[in-house]
């Protein structure tokens, strides 16, 4: 018999990450990323996702994206087309197939 995963091991989470309003320029200009987060004991939350993004996607100049353990001022986070403020911000627990958008506010005209 194959060794089973630990009982309290959560399944991997597949999410769609999007960057817009210029934030995509920090990620080689790629607006959409299909991402699978490995299964872990605790469910994934946005705080951990930010760390994951820094380690895996963000190569240069992290100060243009994060500040402390949150996003820098001027970046809006959207969880399934809603302002993250309505969803629990950093504590929001990621569900399979979630759509997380990081949008930089534009200042042109």
């Amino acid at each position, binding site marked *: 018999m194959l060794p089973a995963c630990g009982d309290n091991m959560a399944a991997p989470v597949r999410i769609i990450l999007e960057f817009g309003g*210029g934030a995509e320029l920090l990620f080689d200009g790629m607006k959409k990323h299909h991402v699978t987060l490995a299964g872990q004991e605790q469910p994934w939350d946005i705080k951990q996702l930010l760390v994951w993004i820094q380690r895996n996607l963000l190569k*240069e100049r992290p*100060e243009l994206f994060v500040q402390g353990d949150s996003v820098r001022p*001027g970046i809006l986070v959207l969880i399934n087309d809603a302002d993250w*403020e309505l969803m629990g911000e950093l504590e929001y627990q990621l569900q399979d197939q979630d759509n997380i958008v990081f*949008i930089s506010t*534009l*200042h*042109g*005209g």
Partner: protein
Amino acid sequence: FWSKEMSEDVSSLKAQLEEKKNEIAILSRKLAQLEKGQTSAPELHHKVTSLNPLTEKPALSREDILRYSRQLLLPELGVRGHLNISKTSVLIVGCGGLGCPVAQYLAAAGIGRLGLLDYDEVELSNLHRQVLHGEENQGQAKALSAASTIKRLNSSVECVPYHLQLTPDNALQLVQQYPHITSVVAIATSSNNVPTRYLVNDSCVLSGKPLVSASALRMEGQLTVYNYQGGPCYRCLYPVPPPPETVTNCSDGGVLGVVPGIMGCFQALEVLKMASGQGSSCSQQLVMFDAQDSRWRSIRLRPRQPDCAVCGEKPSVTRLVDYEAFCGSAATDKCRKLNLLSKDQRITVQEYKCLLDTASPHLLLDVRPLVEVDICSLPFSLNIPLSGLAERKEDNLLLLRDRISQLKQQMAGDCQPAVYVICKLGNDSQTAVQVLEKMMSGSELSNFTVKDVIGGLMAWATIIDPTFPQY
């Protein structure tokens, strides 16, 4: 009896006379139009003055009915809605890529009064997106140029062009003047710097006006209606201003003119819905437009925040403050000037010209992105974009090492080869010098002297070579 010839002459003369009469009528109309246009040319305001109340129209004239018939037929609007629009005053902050279409569609729809504010003059590089200005308006105040075009479109709209900068000292006085008759006033902003956005927001909150705000950059647009029907204000969403170095404006990032055009039309739509009495559906909503993928997206935003500094329960901002200090950046759309290097790490364009004239061996490294190098470049420069240097891309480093060793061979004795870094304005070139120095100390590159050219290619164009393109 008239002969056949005679009667032919008569009818030919009659036809000629008729033709001349038509010509006279056309000329008289042209003259009348010109005279009318001259007398009603809008007067440019250099400071905020108090305005007379709008003269209220009790009913629609026969001409009004003909002119606005297509919108009067809309059940959502009707006569009542149209009369409401004609009583509405709107202040448009910025007569640029967004402000132009906003003003154009509001005027066409018969808005009562338009305040048109801009402190800039029309430049050639504005014309691809700022569609109220024409080639002959270059050098003219944007507010006046916009007002003249609007007057030609609809002479019954009252235009108030303001050639001034919005400041904490004049903003409230100005904003409070809009509206006069109805309680509906919208402030459409296309101001593209962060301090002005906070200034306009706070002025609207403190005087109880809704703010129809949009922005556009590259191939994207965003729109939200703030401080409307209990919804959040700009500060509710962005309590802390972004770090200045993260803000990109149109002259840095580029923009396709039709994108602000679309967003400005969208602003005009929301203003007209509010003015006519239907109300906007964009309160507590962020509408995003991705022109590349032709995709619109509507985001549900947080409600008004009880702890908001200006619209919350215990506001700390009860009058306008110093927004440049608050944001740590200037209230201008012009580019920032970095100062990362010491004086001996930089040379002027004049000094660089001397180096060229004396054929002093060196390498000119252009660190702009490829898209800008395609527009124009100095033919003898080597292009490696700053991003390629910063990420230490192997083929870029190889190229650089090659060119430096070539340079060494050309030079007599053990002189150090010289590299001069240039970019558009002299900001990125400073960062690049720091990156290169780091690579030398980490012995990724052999030693050479490296300096940047102050003011970049745009200084080269203004001071040394007027035929070099500016963008």
